């Protein structure tokens, strides 16, 4: 099922209630759907649109801006291989070819068993550790072809299950705001005073 499941719908309603405008919950809900399905499905976008009372086009328009939302079936592990300057100088291209050969797929696609998606990426902000890659956004530094093969073997054998959760998984600790601690969502249209941190000098005052 690619719509949000029942427990996620309950969670979605809780998230929506945190915002003065339902629409503000759009991105958290897209995250939630990606956690559930590993990628953002069309059905999920329709479902989110229903939940926050916008059109599916609005959900798609917003979500498609973000690189980390994926709209195609994605493996349990998403491997992003950096190809920007430092990594390129230290053999990123060869490493990508090697990875394609090892996995038997072209960059941008997913292994037939649905385990690994391989793709080219831009700078991962670890240029001193080139060439780098990320598995579900967890860095691996100074990667050699042998390291890559070992990584794939470990992923396949499940040895990294504790370290790397499946693609789309959000933080293990979800924010909980008890009702009595919530600031209280005020609709922007209802705001009459300035923000609390701006001191408003009354007219004619000191």
């Amino acid at each position, binding site marked *: 099922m690619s719509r949000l499941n029942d427990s996620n719908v309950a969670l979605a309603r809780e998230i929506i209630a945190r915002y003065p405008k339902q629409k503000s919950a759009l991105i958290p809900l897209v995250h939630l759907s990606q956690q559930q399905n590993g990628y953002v499905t*069309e059905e999920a*976008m*329709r479902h989110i649109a229903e939940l926050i009372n*916008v*059109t*599916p*086009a*609005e*959900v*798609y*328009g*917003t979500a*498609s*801006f973000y690189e980390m939302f994926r709209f195609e079936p994605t493996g349990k592990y998403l491997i992003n291989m950096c190809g920007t300057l430092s990594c390129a100088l230290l053999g990123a291209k060869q490493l990508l070819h090697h990875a394609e050969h090892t996995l038997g797929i072209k960059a941008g696609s997913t292994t037939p068993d649905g385990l690994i998606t391989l793709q080219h990426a831009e700078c991962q902000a670890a240029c001193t550790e080139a060439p780098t890659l990320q598995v579900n956004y967890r860095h691996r530094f100074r990667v050699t072809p042998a390291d890559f093969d070992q990584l794939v073997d470990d992923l396949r054998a499940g040895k990294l299950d504790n370290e790397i959760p499946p693609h789309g998984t959000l933080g293990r600790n979800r924010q909980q705001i008890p009702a009595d601690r919530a600031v209280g969502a005020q609709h922007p249209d209802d705001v009459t005073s300035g923000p609390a941190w701006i001191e408003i000098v009354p007219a004619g005052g000191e």
Partner: protein
Amino acid sequence: MSDEPDNDLTNEDDLVAADTAVETIPEPDPNAVAITLNGREIVARKGETIIAAADREGEYIPRFCYHPRMSSVGMCRQCMVEVDTGRGPMLQPSCMITVLPEMKVETNTPMAKRAQEGILELLLINHPLDCPVCDKGGECPLQDQTLSHGPGESRFVEEKRHYEKPIALSEHVLLDRERCILCDRCTRFADEVAGDKLIQFIERGNATQVSTFPDEPFSSYFSGNTVQICPVGALTAKPYRFKARPWDLEQVESTCTSCSVGCRISVHSSRDELLRFQGVDTGADSDSVNWGWMCDRGRFNFESIEAGHRLGVPLVRSEAGLVDTSWNSALELARQLIDGASSIGLLGGARGTNEGAFAWAQLADAVGIAHRDAQLGDGLSAELLGVPRATINQAAAANTVILVGPDLKEELPVLYLRLRDAAVHGHTKIIEFSSQSTGITRYAWRSIRHAPGLGPVEIAKTLADPTIAAQIASGDVVLVAGRSNMAVSEATALAAVQAVLSAVPNATVLPALRRGNVVGALQLGLAPVDVDHDALATLRLAAAGHLDLLVLLGADPINDCPDADLARRAIAGARHVISIDTLPSESTQQADLVFPAAAFAEQRGTTTNLEGRVSRLNQKVTVHGTARPDWMIASELASVLGHDLGFTSIDDVTAAIAATVPAYASATPTAIDSADGVLAVNTGGGLPSVEATEAQPSGYDYRLVVSRKLYDRAVSTTMSPSLAKLPIGAGAHLHPADHDRVGEPDGAEVRLVSASGSVVLPLVSDDTVQRGTIWAPFNQAGADITDIVDSSTAVTDVRIERLT
């Protein structure tokens, strides 16, 4: 210089000034802001943008994304000008900066020009420059402004962007993405004006493009407007794509008569063929009707005029069916039929011009036709027009709009746009009474659901609610009144309108009657004298075999009357039927004599919209075949019958209307041709008193709601290829919970049984429908829902029988 004026004048001034010493200094206009524009002192209005002020002053600043009817977004950066607010000149987008006192604006300095040229060079980087094959070439703001404000040449030598050409955003609108300059006009229109947010920018960033959600087309009733406001050739409309070059087009202003809103349009043709209609905006201060917008039905149904199915010669019934005949023999036959008839009914007249309606009313008076009606039992009594009338502007500026009538989005789409705008961007609060969710429901302040057959007691109770009463008392009130449900009798609908008027006596009324010139026809003599002579009475008379001749003036009762069974029996029961129409319909097929009539854009004349605004219809193309305008047919028939109506040209008729109909006294040709038209409102009289019968509970499970969709089986829709696929088809729509209770899958056929008949229709689950009711769209392909509607009962109750 101050010493110069002669003493007399100064003395006089002094005398006045002595009495009112202080008051002579005029109060500064609080809304005026003095700014300097290109060295000239001008007075701008508080809160407006520099570009709007410059437009009014005739200083053109190049722009793509700015549109005066939508909010400014500063997407294209083309309108860069130098603005000095005291800190020295700076480049600023003039559509995003509001005027401030003492602001100095320069639009033509070398710096401003360099910015404008730079932006144009940037916009042209990925623009394909395929102008020779682009439909927009010749009328393209990008092309024009590149010539007037562009750099002349580009430094870009790299490969341009390519996309798959074209992709369909909807049934009508095609998108060539490589031409798009991302001005946000179409997406803003969909969001701000139409409220159908079905197109969005996707993949924002380097690959930004306009797109729909996969498999969810831009199926807005207003999609054609995006093509009109696209400043490049990215959006094209299927009916016009590759049909003509702009410099080959001839155009004339006219008024759309697809519904009674009366949108100002321009009609474009080439080589005597209609090619496209566009909305006309006469300006932010002066346009009081459509603001340049149109609905897709009005924009594209001209295809039916050119479709090749038109009636071009008179037809007469013979043993071989309808066969061609000459005008002379047809007129002679008509004379015999009219002379030989002791009772005649005249239905219709709302399709065409004021002149056609007036001439036919004159003819009807001359030969003594007692039964006449421009509506077909699907509207409201013509007395509604005697109640003090509101204009669209007044409705859109009113504090409160009470809506007791049809779904405006389906029947009067541009009125819906105006009221939606009033509710969203203005301060108008809409109180809607409806049996199901409508297009305006999400914008209504209160949307009151009621069972079909709303009683006056319920209305009075609702309007007496303290919050609602306070809102109504807070300012002016406009009642938009029409027929929301054709399975409920006219008397019941009228009683609801009356209940509102007695609760809010100072309310003015905007009649939500649908047909193009229905208000004109009713005001010019085609209104029934009483309920015993209206359309339903006429049809009943004919069905009973007591009518010698039924004249259908552009009317198709079989498809348009809410009691189809009655209409069928009436046409079969009338001894003779004469039909005057543009296109063949089910009713013309059964006529004994058919006169071909001139269609829209084939005749000059005037039309009256629902406000009573008289505006001009202009001819653009030659009349099809030997068809003639309605007024001419009436005039010729009159002369063969021995009456002279005294008309030899359309202008004679227009003049006769102004001379003889008091409401139209000021509707002289010059006044009509002015930008705003003339208001012709015949007030006085007021509503007849109707006995409202409270609908009683019955043994049936559901109460029926029958209302129109924008696209139905109307000939102008079915004979326009672009629109023909859009009607949703007949069905019985139920609330999902009721649908579950029936226990049949979506689309399964069931039998609806009422006291007067039964019909088999597919089930549709629909959450806009209220529980305990069935909603069925009127006049759709498939089984006819009106078979189970009896026009003589207050409401229609039905039960559902499973076929299996």
